[in-house]
């Protein structure tokens, strides 16, 4: 599974959306379950899936899928496969 596929699976599972709704420009305001608890869950999920534990500030600053990609890329996790 590529990192992008892993990310898609994570987003779908954490925010309980349909896989067809996933896109790289998906924003927090587009997803009603991306609330403060969603911020906690995505932090836990990123750590389990990619082995990087976002700080609380980093998790709160994630405003969309692209921000997650940018954060993980900055930690050496590649998405251009």
């Amino acid at each position: 599974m590529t990192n992008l596929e892993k990310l898609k699976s994570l987003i779908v599972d954490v925010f309980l959306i349909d896989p067809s709704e996933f896109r790289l420009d998906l924003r927090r305001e587009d997803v009603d379950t991306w609330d403060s608890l969603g911020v906690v869950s995505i932090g836990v999920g990123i750590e389990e899936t990619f082995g990087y534990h976002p700080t609380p500030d980093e998790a709160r600053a994630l405003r969309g899928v692209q921000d997650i990609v940018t954060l993980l890329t900055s930690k050496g996790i590649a998405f251009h496969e």
Partner: protein
Amino acid sequence: MSRPEVWDRERLLAEPLGDAVVWSTRCVQALVEAALDPPILSPDQPFPPYAATLIVFGGGTLMDRAKQLRRDRSPGLRLIVVPTLWGSGAEGSRIVVLSGPDGKTISVDDENLPDVRVHWPELCESVPENLARFACGDAWAHALESLLSPLGTATSREEAGAVLRRMMSLPLAWHADWLECSLLACKCQAASSVGLVHGIAHRLETPLLRSGKEGWGHARLCSLYLTPVQAFVRQSTPKWDERVRATALDPETVSSKLRPLFNQEDYSLLLPFLEAHWKEILRDPCTRTNAALVRPSTLDFFREFRQ
């Protein structure tokens, strides 16, 4: 003065209680009737408008109902609680779990704190053996899920660790230290959060009651699901073991301690309810602060779980 004020039995019996009424769980009702003057009313009866004080003898469910009554209909009512069962920590908690038509909701507010908590441990001595075990499981669930919570801090984990070490030395049965330990465990979870054990308990209690399955209260559900949830978290993340070890406890010893709370027959009986309500469990706020990510596919783990 910090709330709740703590009284002992003698102070309660000596204090002028004014226009008070009592709610009491059935098992201590005769004792309460003999000891106190105010009338004992059923919580299902209309609450008398003259009452300025409500004294509650019971466990978490009855105390939460009293907190809800004060919040919604009788602000200013003095609330005195006398725990007759340990586990919930409701006697010292600003959390109220409210039952509504759509299941459980949680209110967290300093206004939920009782005014007085009465320490009368003898009332707990007559608790039946199975209820006592479930009460211990409830306290264990609070302390462990608090220790593991992603919202926990170094301080909250240190406090949870301290209470877990004390609980390790207690039996899964009545012991005078349980009242204090369960209160401390409840404070730990209020400072961080709880996890999937509570998410399951909150979402299954009402459907089980509606389906006519008696006796499946919060504490029993927490007790039953502690072991399977622990197994799920341990296979998903090393955090369970790391954090338990950081409290100077051995993860395997803790697991063994909790094992008597699990019952395979009960687990199999409730599996169809877990499956039917899994979507609601996934959306429960407690589930969403679990130490390991709970996914739709996690249900397969619970379908296959055997001790």
